[in-house]
């Protein structure tokens, strides 16, 4: 194998694929990136057995071939090469090594045979649809924060992607919950998504998708089977296993009959929550919301450090209510709202509260209170 690649192109691709490679690996080949020549240039592939990313970069191929080298080392080398340089990769000879040359720098990397490199065996995909990168990214961004990090709740360790209905129109909907809060975002169902059974996309895959869609206006092709998801953006193809679990019937925790409506300026509310929670303890984090006629009082009492209160002018006409929330959860949710005004639909201090933009219906958040 002998190829020459533009350093910037190689670096960009390696930065995408090397993240998939775990820092610690008990299986040596998983620390490596597979590099292979092809008709479109050089393809780079990394996997952790659950997730694989393949990216093709333009390259001048003098001799076809394939090999694998340590991903993080190759990435670090290319990162430190001077900008604008041409990188030559040459494998062969009897020592089974890969020579990396750029300008006057020369590296020799140990290789492992490409035939040992695992393949995720994607199989057939039953559904495939195209969606704008920014729109798909929005689905992920709005819900990602609510994914559970409790490992034993494996069925909550991802985003539930499925086709639902909103006001009679089919939508592609993303839902995540950690059992304390729930986030839901949706967009008009793209052509080809019809009849899609729900799938749970794992947290690590979600994070990689987010990064692949960074400042991309390109179209994304999403393909799904019962066990795998494939996301193709430009020259990058990410394939991942899905979580083998059943996402709960989340619709039942989204309150429909909450009749106490609070409208509050989002920025003022977030700032006030942030201010009063300064005195809260690391463990507690509870902030009490006391609602009266046109007035919201936020308060925190921490026996160890003191107390704080702040009053806000709000739109609220229902009967007075005291309710507690985790301040961090309130801030997480308000930071996802796009408009200026947050709408909270409340019932009582022991029931879920619905939070959304006062003007938009394509995302909603459900938050369970704290007993305070």
């Amino acid at each position, binding site marked *: 194998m002998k190829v020459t690649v533009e350093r910037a192109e190689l670096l960009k691709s390696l930065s995408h694929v090397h993240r998939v490679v775990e820092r610690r690996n008990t299986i040596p080949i998983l620390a490596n990136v597979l590099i292979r020549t092809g008709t479109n240039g050089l393809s780079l592939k990394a996997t952790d057995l659950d997730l694989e990313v393949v990216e093709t970069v333009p390259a001048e191929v003098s001799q076809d071939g394939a090999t694998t080298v340590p991903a993080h080392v190759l990435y670090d080398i290319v990162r430190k090469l001077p900008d604008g340089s041409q990188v030559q990769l040459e494998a062969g000879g009897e020592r089974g090594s890969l020579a990396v040359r750029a300008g006057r720098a020369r590296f020799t990397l140990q290789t492992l045979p490409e035939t040992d490199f695992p393949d995720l065996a994607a199989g057939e995909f039953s559904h495939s649809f195209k969606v704008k990168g920014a729109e798909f990214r929005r689905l992920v961004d709005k819900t990602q924060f609510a994914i*559970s990090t409790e490992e*034993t709740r*494996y069925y909550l360790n991802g985003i539930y992607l499925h086709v639902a209905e909103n006001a009679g129109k089919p939508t592609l909907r993303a839902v995540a919950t950690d059992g*304390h809060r729930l986030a839901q975002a949706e967009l008009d169902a793209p052509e080809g998504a019809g009849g899609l059974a729900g799938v749970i996309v794992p947290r690590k895959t979600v994070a990689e998708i987010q990064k692949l869609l960074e400042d991309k206006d390109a179209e994304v092709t999403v393909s799904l089977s019962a066990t795998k998801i494939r996301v193709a953006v430009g020259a990058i193809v990410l394939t991942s296993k899905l979580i083998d679990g059943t996402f709960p019937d989340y619709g*039942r*925790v989204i309150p429909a009959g909450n009749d106490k409506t609070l409208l509050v300026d989002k920025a003022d509310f977030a700032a006030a929550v942030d201010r009063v929670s300064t005195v809260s303890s690391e463990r507690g*984090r509870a902030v009490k919301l006391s609602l009266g006629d046109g007035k919201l009082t936020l308060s925190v009492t921490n026996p160890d450090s003191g107390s704080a209160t702040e009053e806000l002018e709000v739109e609220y006409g229902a009967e007075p209510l005291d309710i507690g929330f985790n301040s961090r959860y309130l801030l997480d949710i308000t930071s996802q709202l796009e408009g200026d005004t947050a709408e909270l639909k409340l019932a009582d201090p022991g029931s879920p509260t619905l939070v959304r933009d006062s003007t938009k219906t394509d995302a909603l958040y*459900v938050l*369970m209170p704290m007993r*305070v």
Partner: protein
Amino acid sequence: MTGRDTKSRQLPLDLPAAAAMQREDFLGAPGNAAALTLVDSFPDWTARVVCLVGPAGTGKSHLARVFATRSGAVTVAARDLARAAVPEALAHGALVVEDLAPGDFDEAALFHLLNLAREQGAFVLMTARTPPAHWRLATPDLASRLRALPTVEIAAADDPLLAAVLVKLFADRQIPVDDATVQFLLRRMERTVEGAQQVVEALDRAALAAQRPVTRALAAQVLRDLLPGEGEPEDADD
């Protein structure tokens, strides 16, 4: 840990769990063998109207569900049974009547149902916690019909079955749990399927609220809350 911090406590969302209710999900045991044989032998029944009798949580509804799947039966709650709706309920040739309990159903409707079922040769599977033969009823004809009704009893679960039930209940909720925790619960919880359901649900909620895995230590804490006075302080070891 000195128990829950009751001053400020995060409440969990009430995320529903779906119980696995297929035939293969039913846990066979000596105490429910007769009932299982009955459902498995459908439609070769000696009597077309049968009542499953057993304490709460012993699997009557699960078996009724399996029967309904096989026979195409619709399911009605005994207390919702109305005389006028009987012909329609029997229209499929098979019917499940759930939770028959003395004083909690319309006697005229049930009498009409039994008559019509006999006339049409329809299959009816009823469930009850106590044998209908012993009930005091206002309609003497119905009382004598119920005395003649074939019943199949399901016994309360024994320990090996309760252990299997605990594992199934955790599996229904997709909660991985080790055998030590199951044995720990089994020794301390109320020894009924209902007791098992209660403790598993409470543990699921507690784990979700605390964002912790289900462990023996959490089980000890939950049992202390469920059954005050029976907890063991040395178990609060995390």
